[in-house]
């Protein structure tokens, strides 16, 4: 066994190197528990006031098969899951073979020497430091035969704790929280494995990576952070938003949201039911919403398509409803466990007739909590369905964000039955605010809520003037909403050569790309849109101040190179200098990749695109 110190001189990277962020990629099989060790690392980083973001692949097979978890943690702002890994942990030979390319030159390869034999020549050439650790045999030594399958991940956690000088006390506490409710021996074994990994000598690796002291943005010091996935944040956000009823059908990658709400909502006096199909999901949610209870349904693209008839009803009948779409690759069954932003067209237009609805998109995990609160508020203030877009990348990645101040964000926009003298459900002179059933109306005229075109009382009417007035009423409320929306903040110069426009999960990558370009002297600007319908004010004016506007999105291009949002913006503002950067590989943009694409599109600039990494599938 070659120990770390015995690596021939010149092979090892001549550290120490001070990092303000590090990317750790753990590659193994799905049953190795690398997801849970990754999640624990993420939570630890969150607790250490470090920023963190993760990325993982779910294997297509239900159990078994290769799997990776990537953690990007740092003392500065971490906005993306990172490009190249600083440390690659390889459990098996196939992990090493598939992922060595994703390790940057000069990085560290930490591998299970029980299973992996690296090609030392290649490592030397790329200045990669090999750190062999017989993880499997050591874990078996510590825990006995069962350690082969279970415990290796915790042993690794101990190794990483040693390498990064992570706070062992915090780790022990975390293990207690994670395993404390199980059989006593489970926690004991976990602690044994942890200490084993921590005590195993990996030599100088400690001196290679030291983290800078956390740099805080103004007011961020000492902030308590929560660490969770986007789907978790969405479920907690829905509770904070006042949602007390939900109904839906399981579909990847939306399902975890409904699973968590099924479990959690009863504790808040609510309920989330699994329905027989997608159509019943939205119908039941509409029924509860009609009852005055803030309600939601959700799905992924195929399910949203099925719900579209009822979306048009919600627009016509003016029922407030939160509809979540956690997007995946399409069309049809498509790529269920990959990311794509190809449901925008559907979100904007699903349904028949003129059916204006609100469409919003979360930019990161934190948004899944806070923006969904705004979505539910808008749904109720404007009596309109709101389609809330997330995607597979946000849904599954773990981020840390400040513990929300619940006192200021909690809301309950439900409607309570009262007694009123008279009531018109669809007044033409103001925005509809339904009185729920149970409302006693003393003049004795009870309202109809209907999908037929109707007069102010909800009685059917095919009168041309009524249809025109009611169509305008449903349109005008979104115009009114648009005026209240904040103008998106511009990163970089307020005018210039190139404005990047993003929406959804591309935000972090676009921000880091703009920062990296700026660092090499090239000034790009960027905005990120959270409100996709209606659009916020001021966009046309902003777009006109740039020579070129490129909308970055993960969907397919048209003849003009425009993706789905780019087409909307181009049509809306009739500005031909709006173009797009699109892609359809089912994977999130990486910073280097995006910068290269920008250069390709606008040409001319020599932007530092980052360390040489293959732009092939980062799973490999």
């Amino acid at each position: 066994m070659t120990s770390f110190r015995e690596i021939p001189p010149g092979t090892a990277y001549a550290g120490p190197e001070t990092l303000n962020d590090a990317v750790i990629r753990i590659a193994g099989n799905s049953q190795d528990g690398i997801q849970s060790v990754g999640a624990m690392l993420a939570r630890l980083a969150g607790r250490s006031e470090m920023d963190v973001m993760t990325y993982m692949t779910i294997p297509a097979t239900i159990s078994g098969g290769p799997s990776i978890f990537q953690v990007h943690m740092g003392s500065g702002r971490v906005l993306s899951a990172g490009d190249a890994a600083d440390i690659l942990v390889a459990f098996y030979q196939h992990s090493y073979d598939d992922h060595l390319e994703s390790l940057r030159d000069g990085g560290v390869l930490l591998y299970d020497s029980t299973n992996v034999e690296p090609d030392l020549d290649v490592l030397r050439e790329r200045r990669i430091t090999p750190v062999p650790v017989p993880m499997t045999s050591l874990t078996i030594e510590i825990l006995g035969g069962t350690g082969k399958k279970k415990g290796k991940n915790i042993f690794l956690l101990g190794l990483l704790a040693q390498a990064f000088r992570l706070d062992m006390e915090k780790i022990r506490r975390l293990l207690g929280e994670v395993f404390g409710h199980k059989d006593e021996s489970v926690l004991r074994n976990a602690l044994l494995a942890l200490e084993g990994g921590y005590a195993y000598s990996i030599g100088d690796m400690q001196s290679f990576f030291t983290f800078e002291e956390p740099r805080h943005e103004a007011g961020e010091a000492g902030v308590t952070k929560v660490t969770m996935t986007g789907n978790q944040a969405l479920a907690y956000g829905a509770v904070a938003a006042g949602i007390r009823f939900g109904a839906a059908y399981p579909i990847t990658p939306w399902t975890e949201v409904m699973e968590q709400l099924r479990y959690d909502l009863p504790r808040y006096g609510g309920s989330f039911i699994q329905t027989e199909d997608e159509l019943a999901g939205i119908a039941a949610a509409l029924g509860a919403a009609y009852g005055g209870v803030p309600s939601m349904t959700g799905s992924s693209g195929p399910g949203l398509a099925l719900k579209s008839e009822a979306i048009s009803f919600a627009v016509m009948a003016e029922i407030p409803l939160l509809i979540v779409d956690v997007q995946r690759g399409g069309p049809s069954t498509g790529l269920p466990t990959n990311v794509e932003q190809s449901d925008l067209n559907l979100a904007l237009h699903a349904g028949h007739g003129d059916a204006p609805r609100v469409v919003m998109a979360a930019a990161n995990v934190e948004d899944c909590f806070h923006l969904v609160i705004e979505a539910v508020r808008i749904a109720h203030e404007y009596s309109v369905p709101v389609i809330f877009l997330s995607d597979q990348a946000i849904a599954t990645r773990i981020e840390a964000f400040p513990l929300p101040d619940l006192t200021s964000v909690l809301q309950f926009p439900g409607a309570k039955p009262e007694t009123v003298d008279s009531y018109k459900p669809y007044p033409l002179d103001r925005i509809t605010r339904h009185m729920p059933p149970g409302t006693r109306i003393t003049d004795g005229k009870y309202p109809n809520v209907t999908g037929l075109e109707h007069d102010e009382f909800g009685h059917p009417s095919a009168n041309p003037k009524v249809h025109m007035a009611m169509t305008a009423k449903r349109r005008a409320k979104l115009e009114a909403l648009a005026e209240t929306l904040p103008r998106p903040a511009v990163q970089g110069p307020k005018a210039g050569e190139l404005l990047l426009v993003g929406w959804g999960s591309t935000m972090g990558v676009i921000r880091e790309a703009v920062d990296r370009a700026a660092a090499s002297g090239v000034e790009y600007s960027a905005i990120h849109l959270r409100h996709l319908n209606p659009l916020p004010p001021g966009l046309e004016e902003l777009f006109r101040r740039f020579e070129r506007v490129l909308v970055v999105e993960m969907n397919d291009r048209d003849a003009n190179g425009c993706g789905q949002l780019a087409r909307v913006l181009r049509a809306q503002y009739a500005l031909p200098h709006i173009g797009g950067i699109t892609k359809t590989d089912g994977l999130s943009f990486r910073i280097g990749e995006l910068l290269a694409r920008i250069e390709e599109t606008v040409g001319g600039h020599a932007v530092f695109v980052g360390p040489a990494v293959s732009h092939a599938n980062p799973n490999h």
Partner: protein
Amino acid sequence: MVHTVNDTPVCAEQRPPLTRADLKADKPTWCPGCGDFSVLAIYQKLLEKKNLPQESIVTLSGIGCSSRFPYFVNTHSVHFIHGRILPFATGLSLSRPDLHPIVFIGDGDAYSIGGNHFDHCARKNVRLMVVVMDNQVYGLTKKQTSPTSPVGFKSKTDPWGSKVTPINPTKKLISSGATFVARTAASNPNHMLEMMEAALDHDGFSVVECFSECVQFNPGSFDAAVPRKGGAYPPVPEDHDVTNEEAAYALTREPFPGHFGIYFKVDRPTLNETEGGLAESPTSDTALKDVRQQLEASLRQLT
């Protein structure tokens, strides 16, 4: 001012009783002689008899001639999309246990486009009353075959006569797990009132399958069940045990017009009961402080 409603009419004493006049709304637009008039009249009579607080009644429907119902009765009402009113009513029933949701739909909503939902409402035993106004034809769209049209029925979509076995509604409902299944006809108002009242009183998913003649496109279809037209209206035999599923199936196998009355009635926990968290009305925001404490505790576990 919040006015609380529940199963017992709280204001019954202070309020004049509910009358047919209170319940009148738009003039029905059905063809003269349509069976639906009679169903409407009996529904209003039922509400008058039960004297429920008017604001607690919600009349719901799907799409079709019969589904125009909500406009003709003065209660809170919903005219939803085709086939989906049962899940809509499920959401309402679960989230607002203080209300009385009552669904009126036709055979298209119930057994064709929304057939799946009927099965699932039945097995879940949602606290909900449904009256299916079955005319064995699509009337609103002017005579197409319905899932209950008999073999040989000629329509615009079956000009040579339907070749397809019709749905047997009562049989299907019992096998799906409905806890109350009755059969009646609009031509027999007294019996219809009796069945609707029993359905309303049932705690669970109760279905009244009701022949309601389409005089326009399927005239005479139910004559065999109308004594004054030479037919017979055989009641469910007195010794029928409504809790006996096998006996109920035997009734569903009788040739047309079959028997009228309650085929099946059992008690099983309702979905409303099992989804206990909803027992406290979520329309209250007084618990926001508790919400904050709960949610804060959950989030702190993720720090």
